[in-house]
């Protein structure tokens, strides 16, 4: 097939393109960075112009782009998107129903939620890792640090959103946050927030003159999720740094104890894997809004032959065995206890990391995933 690959600088672009070409497809790329993914007159016109220049069999993108979906719908061209973003912005649902869409998400629970709402074009496809490309880096795996974390700490809007709320709502949301904090593999946030509560919150914004703020249940749930994620990541890093050599690699402004070594962001295709390979444990607490799926970062760690240290996620448990392929924890206390154990048993860490890589290689290859996604087109 002749595929037009639309990209906006995704991490997985190169691996997906290579997989497509290895399957014999002809791939042409269009790159464009949206200021506004929902309105861009120039893009509408220009993309349509580009689609007219050659006959394509389908358009593909990593992550879902509403204006790409709209253009493909207008041209009657299949549009396949495979997202590592989760959850998707609510407004994107307005573009889901086009019969030209084939939307693949890695979080099975998120897919189920969309299917329940009637969005049948949304399907599940876990993400992938290119173990062969990582192998070619020739990583030394000489351990230089105890624990690393590569990623964001997240700053949540929750404190701002709660500021004008009534005390009852503040108390309720605080309690809900603490319950969800202790729950892994199950997301109760949206189902625990009533429509009345959201209406009361929006009313409280209007009372302080914030008429344009309109919070949804999902938006509130996401704010709680990012607050939990921020808390969990910060606590784990700070606590572990009391006893161990802990490093974070992030573009965020990190407010952590002085004992955590803070570094800037790392390049995706090489520096990141070097960090993984030289760290005894690679901490990977999932963004809490991802209910069941395996995030890209987790697969990157596994594929590099480094030890993944993650919270419990249902889909991780389907493919990987705790204690054999990776280490998972089910509470902050559990995480601290396991970190202590494994950091004092380095030989076990090594064998788990190797086993994890082979499990990732066998079940999460790009070629297989891309072939499956394109099979139905």
């Amino acid at each position, binding site marked *: 097939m002749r595929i037009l690959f639309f*990209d906006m*600088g*995704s*991490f997985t*672009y*190169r691996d997906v393109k290579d997989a497509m070409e290895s399957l014999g497809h002809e791939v042409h*790329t*269009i*790159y*464009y*960075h*949206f*200021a506004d993914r929902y309105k861009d*007159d*120039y893009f509408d*016109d*220009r*993309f*349509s*112009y*580009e689609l007219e220049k050659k006959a394509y069999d389908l358009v593909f993108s990593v992550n879902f782009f509403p204006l790409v979906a709209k253009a493909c719908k207008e041209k009657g061209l299949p549009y396949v998107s495979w997202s590592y973003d989760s959850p998707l912005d609510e407004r994107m649902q307005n573009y889901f129903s086009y019969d030209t869409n084939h939307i693949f998400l890695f979080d099975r629970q998120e897919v189920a939620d969309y299917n329940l709402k009637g969005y049948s074009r949304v399907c599940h496809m876990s993400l992938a890792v290119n173990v062969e490309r990582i192998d070619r880096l020739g990583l030394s795996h000489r351990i230089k640090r105890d624990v690393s974390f590569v990623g964001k700490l997240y700053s949540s809007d929750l404190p701002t959103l709660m500021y004008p709320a009534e005390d009852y709502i503040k108390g309720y949301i605080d309690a809900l946050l603490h319950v969800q904090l202790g729950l892994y593999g199950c997301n109760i946030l949206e189902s625990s927030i009533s429509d009345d509560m959201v209406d009361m919150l929006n009313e409280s914004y209007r009372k302080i003159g914030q008429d344009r703020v309109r919070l949804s249940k999902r938006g509130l749930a996401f704010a709680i999720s990012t607050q939990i994620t921020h808390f969990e990541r910060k606590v784990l890093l700070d606590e572990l740094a009391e006893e161990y050599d802990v490093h974070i690699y992030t573009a965020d402004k990190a407010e952590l104890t002085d004992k955590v070594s803070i570094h800037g*962001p*790392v*390049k*995706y*295709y090489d520096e990141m894997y070097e960090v993984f390979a030289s760290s005894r444990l690679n901490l990977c607490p999932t963004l809490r809004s991802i209910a069941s799926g395996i995030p890209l970062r987790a697969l990157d760690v596994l594929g590099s032959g480094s030890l993944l240290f993650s919270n419990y996620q249902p889909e991780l448990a389907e493919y990987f065995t705790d204690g054999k392929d990776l280490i998972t924890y089910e509470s902050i206390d559990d995480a601290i206890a396991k970190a202590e154990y494994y950091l004092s048993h380095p030989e076990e860490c090594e064998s788990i990391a190797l086993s994890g890589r082979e499990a990732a290689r066998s079940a999460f290859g790009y070629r297989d995933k891309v072939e499956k996604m394109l099979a139905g087109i």
Partner: protein
Amino acid sequence: MKIVAVTYGTETREEIEKDLERISGLISGLEDSGRLFGKDTLDCIGDNSDIVMLDTSKDKRPYFSRDIRNEHPDILVSYDLAGFELTTLTDGLAYNLIDCRQIHLIKSDKLSNEKRLNEVMSINMFFFTKDRVIEDYLKENYPKIPFIDSIEKE
């Protein structure tokens, strides 16, 4: 209309204004120029543009591309691939993250960042060469360039 011009310090404001005027005329004459370049952007290259000049020969900070974005340019202009060495975390072109129309003028046949033209480039980028010789060379060796034309016309 704000134009950010990234150079190696060899172009004057007057030269940049003159080049933009020539290119504006050139683009207007192209088939489908409105769809390719965006009519509203075309209309705005003119005397009333505020030109901010950034000199990469002096500024080697790794976050220089962020400074460009913070200027919120309506059009980005570069000379001889100045700034093409700036990268994203996936080693792509940092200019790809700047969401405005971009005019990349190439006047020299010795480009220190030439190999960067092997990277994926945004459809926001428009390359104009000093002459057809440079245009033909770049077209043949760098097929990923989304648009290229020469200022020199027969």
